[in-house]
């Protein structure tokens, strides 16, 4: 079952929800900080680009640990936006580069696979990360 998250929630409370819901060990692998970063990037984008237009909004997250991968499945209702089309950061010197616009590139490059689809007014984004082999006592198994 997916977690329901309000755009007004803090990232700390969202990550705690993930740990409470899926178990402390679900993301216990060498990609845990990548997962946290990706969840924060998604949430920050929702707050900046979706919630501001309709006050607050709700989005959904499901974490699936399967076959050496962690899949973060994000969903939210709203106008279609495909984050897989982001450009990588430019090569120009730091002095000439804009300070913002890095979030989607970070999401894309931290993941091993990103798939987006838009169905019936809902944005559905799946971000998959390869993990090291889980332990035998991993509750995700």
């Amino acid at each position, binding site marked *: 079952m997916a977690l329901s998250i309000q755009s007004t929630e*803090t990232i*700390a409370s969202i990550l705690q929800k993930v740990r409470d819901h899926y178990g402390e060990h679900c993301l216990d692998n060498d990609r845990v900080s990548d997962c946290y*970063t990706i969840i*924060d990037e998604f949430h*920050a984008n929702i707050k900046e680009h979706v919630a501001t237009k309709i006050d607050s909004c709700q989005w959904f997250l499901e974490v699936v640990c399967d076959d050496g991968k962690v899949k973060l499945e994000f969903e939210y209702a709203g106008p279609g936006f495909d984050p897989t089309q982001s450009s990588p950061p430019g090569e120009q010197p730091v002095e000439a580069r804009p300070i*913002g616009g890095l979030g989607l590139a970070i999401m894309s490059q931290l993941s091993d696979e990103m798939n987006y689809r838009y169905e019936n007014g809902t944005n559905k984004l799946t971000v998959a990360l390869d993990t090291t082999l889980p332990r035998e006592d991993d509750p995700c198994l």
Partner: protein
Amino acid sequence: MPLTIIEQYTSDEALSFELQGSLDSDTAPQLDERLAEAITPTTRLVAFNMAGVSFISSAGLRVIFKTLKLMKARKGQVSVSQMSKGVKKVFEIVKIMPDLTVFGDQAEMDEYLEAIQRREEL
């Protein structure tokens, strides 16, 4: 995860902070405000010990990036030490590693700060 910012060293030219927790969209404004208070017109080096940083996102990077741009405009520098593998990966994605002064450990950073202090005392 909250962010704890510990000011380790302050002089006319240099500032050093130890960061503990996550540098994310909630906590980045806290670091931004702290730096705005601490950086003076004479600051030329801002150093961050990242050993306690569990993860960083673009919001946190923006603060580091903003500080780096300010220091570079003054011919100064931003240094980082003891980044975890995950944190370093994010820095590499946004391609700012070549612009940072990277120290392997706190001792190396301390030695560098002490050299600045000795120079200031002359």
